[in-house]
């Protein structure tokens, strides 16, 4: 399997008043093409920081210090961390999309749903849409007033070549010269298409007449997903996208993810703290603890044969359907990342801690095919 995303030694720090928060401590990870990858861990373990570093949307006190994020797409390999801000903006939403936890803050309350979904198309696929409008104009069935038709044809020809020319932007703001209504209409049609694909009930009406406050939480999250999927991204990142939703709605959305994975997108990174979601939707899993990646393996291996002590304990501490007797819990708390414990960051809470654990950060090794563990227990063998 080829990787779509290779993360190498990614380090991210947050410079706060209390000190430097070492949020990511040399993370290395490969995400294969066509795989739903689950990234689990407790809050503050760095799973969100990791994907935000990949997308380069880390907020102010945070800095991506070093490392590489190599994105493979159509035979090209680009290091996302070295890309210019402009080309990164083109890439976001187009090739890599991200969905956040809170659909309310992702949607603009004063724009209609249709406008918001179209925006993504207008930003990333304008050329393509202009070409389509042009084709319509050239077709014999077009009954537009002739001088206006000539004008539009001229403009759309230009737009299909370079959609960000200054003159186009200027003309679109001058009355009587506004040319982009047709492009917007096309974008709206595409929006309705994608919303229908995501099973939004009565998509056309929703797109034209609804505003975010008209919709329920589950439906809003669907719209957010529609925006994210608008341009057929190769990689979709979902940052706790279902954790604010109700059980029955969450089930709907997860089902949707599975469906989408078959039809539209090739790879998904699913960030969650819910091991149940991982077990049901993911194929590969990465377990994070305090800024380190502890274990990466296929989902069956993680759940049936966990190797890292943290993974074991994490699995023991969630209530299960077959639960009998007491839950095991991890003593202690997640460490403060300003002054993380030396060596392996899990050692103060680890049942199998050894001397070496407090001294050295364990290297990641592959103990069987596709099963990576970073723990001293397996290093010596």
């Amino acid at each position, binding site marked *: 399997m080829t990787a779509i995303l290779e993360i190498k030694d990614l380090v991210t720090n947050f410079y706060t008043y209390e000190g430097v928060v070492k949020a990511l401590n040399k993370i290395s990870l490969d995400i294969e093409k066509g795989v739903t990858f689950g990234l689990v861990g407790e809050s503050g373990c760095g799973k969100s920081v990791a994907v935000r570093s990949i997308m380069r949307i880390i907020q102010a006190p945070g800095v991506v210090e070093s490392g590489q994020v190599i994105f493979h797409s159509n035979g090209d390999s680009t290091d996302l961390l070295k890309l210019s801000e402009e080309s990164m903006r083109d890439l976001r939403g187009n090739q890599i999309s991200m969905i956040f936890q809170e659909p309310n803050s992702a949607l603009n309350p004063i724009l209609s749903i249709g406008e918001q979904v179209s925006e993504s198309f207008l930003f990333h696929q304008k050329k393509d849409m202009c070409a389509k409008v042009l084709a319509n104009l050239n077709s014999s069935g077009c009954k537009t007033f002739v001088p206006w038709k000539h004008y539009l044809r001229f403009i759309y020809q230009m737009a299909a070549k370079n959609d960000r020319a200054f003159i186009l932007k200027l003309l679109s703001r001058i009355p009587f010269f506004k040319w982009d209504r047709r492009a917007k209409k096309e974008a709206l049609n595409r929006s309705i298409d994608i919303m229908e694909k995501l099973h939004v009930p009565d998509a056309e009406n929703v797109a034209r007449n609804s505003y975010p406050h008209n919709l329920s939480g589950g439906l809003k999250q669907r719209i957010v997903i529609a925006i994210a999927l608008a341009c057929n991204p190769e990689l979709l990142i979902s940052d706790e996208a279902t954790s604010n939703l109700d059980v029955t709605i969450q089930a709907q959305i997860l089902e949707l993810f599975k469906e989408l994975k078959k039809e539209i997108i090739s790879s998904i990174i699913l960030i969650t703290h819910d091991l149940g*979601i991982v*077990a049901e939707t993911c194929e590969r899993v990465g377990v994070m603890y305090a800024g380190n990646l502890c274990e990466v393996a296929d989902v069956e291996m993680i759940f049936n044969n966990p190797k890292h002590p943290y993974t074991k304990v994490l699995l023991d501490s969630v209530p299960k359907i077959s639960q009998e007797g007491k839950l095991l*819990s991890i003593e202690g708390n997640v460490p403060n990342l300003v002054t993380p414990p030396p060596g392996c960051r899990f050692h103060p809470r680890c049942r199998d801690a050894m001397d070496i654990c407090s001294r050295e950060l364990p290297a990641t090794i592959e103990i069987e095919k596709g099963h990576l563990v970073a723990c001293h227990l397996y290093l010596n063998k």
Partner: protein
Amino acid sequence: MEKLLELKKLKKYYPILGGVLRRQINSVKALDGIDLTINRGECLGLVGESGCGKTTTGKAIIKLHDPTEGNILYYKDGNGDKKGVDIAYMKRRALKKKGIRSKLQMVFQDPTTSMNPRMLVKNVIAEPLKELGNMGSKMLQDRVLELLGLVGLTRDHLLRYPHEFSGGQRQRIAVARAIATNPEFIVMDEPTSALDVSVQAQILNLLVELQEKYNLTYLFVTHHLLVVKYISQRIAVMYLGKIVEVSETKEFFNKPIHPYTHALLSGIPIPEIGMKRKRMILTGDVPSPISPPDGCRFHNRCPFVEERCRIEEPLPEDIGNHHLVACHRKYEVEKLFGDTYGNSH
């Protein structure tokens, strides 16, 4: 089994004001006639989706608001009280005077907001004790230390502010505050949903331990079915201001009846591999509690709906073994479910 609390036809409507004169134009029917019995010493899980009225139920019982209609009967400990006191419309002062206030407590969902950020932990825990009165400062200090010990914290934590603690420790403090006055009944309003998985287990174990030690009664409000399964002896399911099913935990998971319960059960993501099940995934959303549907409230999402469901509201009926279900087709559902989705649970 000895009853501790009994809710009878409990209703809570929140008025919606509108127009220039701010007249009531409609109401949100958060609770629409609930009957529920809570037995002494049990943990009753109350599950449902957000907005179904489960938190409102909890808050009504501990008297954070007055219900619109209905009764809450409280059977006091030990005195052979067979009639119970109706606390539904009791004023806060009377409640305190009769010593009921300190017997009904609550642990809130988010420990970051449930404590005054400008108070030291010492004062946070001491606050309910001070309201009981008749306690010297030495006694108070000792009691606070004892409570801290009970929830697994130490003397070092006494002189700190809540924000200096992690989420789990904060929830421990909240639990300590709730048990400070030796209550009989505690409403747990999603006490673990703001916590991490590993900490959640700690808190759940703590709660079980305390329950056994002091013979506490819990109403455990949550949307997380696996958590209720772990902690509760009985489970009640709410949908849109109504209770649709009440049964014992084992029966709840092995022999669910109400279609909504089936939907909930198949909606939970299970953290185990190889539990391949047929899933019943509901379409659509929960209707608005301002104008709930006629008849059975679940009928517009129910896959087994028939004409009767749209017109007539089903009443909860005991189908044996204290298993209450409010569904017209309660005797057919099992077969229907098996036919449509395959036998699964």
